[in-house]
């Protein structure tokens, strides 16, 4: 029986429901030391003196001079030191590493650092240091603006957001022969491997990175684990013993990456009938102290900034700047939630300006097959913006409720959005991901570097392979992601694990089937021994991207969605409570409907948190509420009932028609909620829409 399209049980379900799944903090190695990171306490300055009395006393202490290779965290650039030398550029910058056998002794150890402080730049609007800037030009927006009947302008802001995976970051580094193995909670084993090569100055074959069971990532374990792994590895090589470095919640929230705060300005020319004539978008993202992934986050944000709408004249100008705050980085959506928040609230304001139905405005302008995006990409038949909009509107009874709620303390609002699957532009070609299938006694084993971080990688890949080979799902297993044994199938990010890596696996299965004939792979193995097939990513036909001009096919394909939020305001406390949510999402094909619903429900819930609850309070360049007591994410009581509708318009690019689903669900909830709040008559242009901001808006409108 085919398994694709069915909610087969997860491969990892048993271990997770019995508590036998082994996460990094559940592992121990003989002779293992515990480690701790000593971090800067000021946002900017020079280190004058470091004092401690730890040498001897069973402590291993490491600073930048103990790094065998280069003192750099290798991501997009190499500007971030692994350990500060003289300068510190943000609070919580790593300065010194300690290790000791006894975790309690380690916790009590004190280190004093004297600084010569300097004035930090904390406001991105005042920053003069640009990490990355880019422009997307389509037509001539400035000239076309003159033909518009009405010009609508606005500025929209979003704050930091903490990923808040429930398992904090952690790794264990284990010296192994003349090299090292690092086990960790991470999304991208090969990113860590590359970073370790630079820091340790070791050849590739003397470094092994193994993903332990990972308790959530959401982008937060994309690049930062490279830092932790390198810290632990430096200590382990110095101590010649295994070293465990697991963060507690406070350290994780204070030090690791968050969603980039954004300020997006729109200037849009429209005709009285609602047609978009020209769009000018200015995007500013706060990258924090080092480049990390800011250029790529900015790029995805800019490409999604004009939304799923047709407009002949678009100018997007985007920059990510440096501030003396901890570097921001990957978080589900990767720039697209910020820019689509701005656009979708702006669209609502355009509808208000024109006294137009917000649905009608979006229907009129939604991309259709044959239309082109801001980068000039022509939409194919799987462009279903209009269909998801209409389905969400009818499903939620939008117009009737809009009328019924008017003048009450309830509001209803929507957002229309899209998300490109896979790496941006020529990213997939440069990555050149590989995946393998090997026959086993029982069937086949999948060998990929893709991480299971809760989204269902192992299960979904096994379903694709099972059906492509025509064997039962139970006969497919997945190898542990260990860089010594699996090929580099790229990072587990960018909604690419199903569409891109799953696609390569499907091609592996087709070739394996050709090679083993009609035999079951297990039987073939018993007769002929192991057979392995490895395939590399191949760019699909008709996909071309110009990196210099920012033109062309930014993504092989896009998924499409429409969210409808219904909210209720407490007139005494100004709290906004979401009471119902409708999420209609076209993701090509649900390989496993339960997993897909899980992504949509979970992503929507995170989006609701970002919209209403999750406020990172920055004080003197540091997160002042770095604990779960006062950085609040949605609980059961904050999460409304959801009507999730999975639409399946197949894409020619993904296995069985599948597109990416991991990130898109977080793009839509915030603008839908803010537009529902607008329906209450409150002008909100910044999230989170906390009771304080609602009260302020209520005072203005009163």
């Amino acid at each position: 029986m085919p398994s694709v399209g069915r909610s087969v049980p997860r491969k990892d379900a048993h271990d997770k429901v019995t508590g036998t799944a082994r996460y990094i903090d559940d592992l121990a190695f003989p002779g293992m030391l515990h480690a701790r990171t000593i971090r800067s306490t000021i946002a900017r300055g020079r280190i004058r003196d470091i004092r401690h009395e730890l040498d001897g006393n069973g402590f291993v202490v490491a600073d930048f001079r103990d790094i065998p290779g280069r003192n750099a965290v290798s991501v997009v650039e190499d500007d971030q030191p692994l350990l500060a030398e003289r300068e510190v550029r943000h609070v919580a910058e790593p300065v010194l590493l300690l290790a000791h056998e006894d975790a309690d002794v380690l916790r009590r150890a004190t280190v004093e650092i004297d600084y010569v402080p300097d004035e930090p730049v904390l406001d991105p609007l005042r920053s003069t240091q640009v990490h990355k800037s880019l422009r997307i030009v389509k037509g001539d927006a400035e000239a076309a603006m003159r033909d518009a009947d009405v010009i609508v302008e606005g500025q929209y802001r979003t704050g930091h957001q903490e990923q808040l995976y429930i398992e904090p970051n952690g790794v264990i580094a284990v010296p192994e022969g003349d090299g090292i193995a690092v086990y960790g909670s991470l999304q991208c084993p090969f990113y860590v491997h590359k970073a370790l090569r630079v820091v340790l100055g070791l050849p590739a074959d003397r470094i092994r990175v193994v993903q332990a069971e990972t308790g959530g990532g959401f982008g937060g374990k994309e690049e930062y684990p490279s830092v932790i792994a390198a810290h632990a590895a430096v200590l382990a090589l110095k101590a010649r013993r295994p070293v465990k470095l697991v963060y507690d919640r406070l350290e994780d929230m204070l030090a690791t990456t968050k969603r980039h705060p954004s300020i997006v300005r729109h200037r849009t020319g429209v005709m009285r009938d609602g047609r978009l004539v020209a769009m000018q978008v200015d995007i500013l993202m706060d990258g924090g102290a080092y480049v990390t992934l800011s250029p790529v986050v900015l790029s995805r944000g800019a490409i999604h900034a004009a939304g799923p709408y047709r407009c002949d004249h678009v100018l997007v100008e985007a920059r990510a700047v440096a501030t003396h705050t901890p570097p921001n980085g990957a978080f589900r959506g990767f720039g697209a939630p910020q820019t689509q928040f701005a656009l979708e609230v702006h669209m609502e304001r355009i509808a208000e300006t024109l006294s137009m139905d917000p649905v009608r405005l979006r229907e009129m302008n939604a991309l259709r097959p044959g239309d082109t995006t801001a980068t000039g990409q022509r939409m194919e038949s799987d462009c279903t913006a209009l269909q998801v909009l209409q389905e969400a509107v009818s499903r939620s009874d939008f117009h009737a409720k809009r009328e019924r709620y008017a003048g009450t303390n309830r509001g209803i609002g929507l957002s229309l959005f899209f998300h490109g699957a896979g790496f941006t532009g020529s990213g997939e070609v440069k990555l050149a991901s590989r995946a393998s299938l090997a026959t086993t006694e029982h069937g086949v084993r999948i060998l990929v570097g893709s991480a299971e971080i809760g989204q269902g990688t192992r299960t979904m890949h096994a379903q694709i392979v099972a059906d492509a080979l025509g064997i039962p799902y139970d006969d497919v297993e997945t190898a542990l992601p260990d860089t010594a044994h699996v090929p580099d199938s790229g990072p587990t990010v960018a909604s690419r694990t199903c569409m891109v890596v799953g696609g390569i696996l499907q091609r592996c299965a087709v070739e394996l089937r050709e090679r083993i004939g009609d035999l079951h792979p297990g039987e073939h193995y018993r007769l002929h021994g192991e057979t392995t097939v490895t395939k590399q990513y191949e760019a699909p036909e008709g996909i071309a991207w110009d990196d210099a001009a920012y033109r062309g096919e930014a993504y092989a394909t896009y998924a499409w969605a429409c969210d409808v939020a219904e909210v209720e305001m407490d007139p005494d406390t100004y709290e906004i409570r979401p009471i119902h949510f409708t999420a209609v999402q076209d993701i090509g094909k649900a390989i496993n409907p339960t997993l897909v619903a899980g992504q949509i429900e979970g992503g929507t819930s995170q989006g609701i948190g970002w919209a209403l609850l999750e406020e990172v309070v920055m004080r003197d360049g540091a997160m002042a509420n770095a604990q779960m007591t006062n950085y609040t994410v949605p609980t059961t009581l904050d999460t409304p009932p959801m009507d999730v509708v999975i639409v399946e318009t197949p894409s020619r690019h993904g296995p069985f028609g599948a597109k990416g689903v991991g990130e898109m669900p977080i793009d839509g909830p915030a603008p839908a909620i803010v537009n529902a709040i607008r329906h209450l008559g409150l002008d909100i242009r910044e999230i989170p829409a906390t009771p304080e901001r609602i009260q302020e808006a209520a005072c203005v409108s009163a």
Partner: protein
Amino acid sequence: MRLRVNGRDAEVDAPPMTRLLDALRLHCGLTGTKEGCGEGECGACTVLLDGEPVCSCLVPLAHAEGAEVATIEGLGGDHPLQRAFAEHGAAQCGICTPGMIMTALSLPASPTLDDVRFALAGNICRCTGYHAIYRAILRA
């Protein structure tokens, strides 16, 4: 310190202010109970203390002396809640799952959706948006 863990006597040689969480994980080798925040907010470390769900990161070992402690390991692997969590995709990354299941054990028979929502309000899941967890518990 003497207590009973999953129906068996356990002798834990640790100071009385040791967190019950550490006593279970480090001294009893029961790593199914997870630490998410260490401040009683996330519920990942939930165990039953004399039948009541508690955050084991907030309970000193001294409070558990002589008490009956139940952890996820005590359920075996075939409890209806475990089967339902597996079947309905209620465990995604899985780190909150043991705590969720332990809290769910304290629900009355045939709970309503509101019973479930209120009971689980102290258990944070960042993956599922909770709906798969409701489906699992209501159908267990």
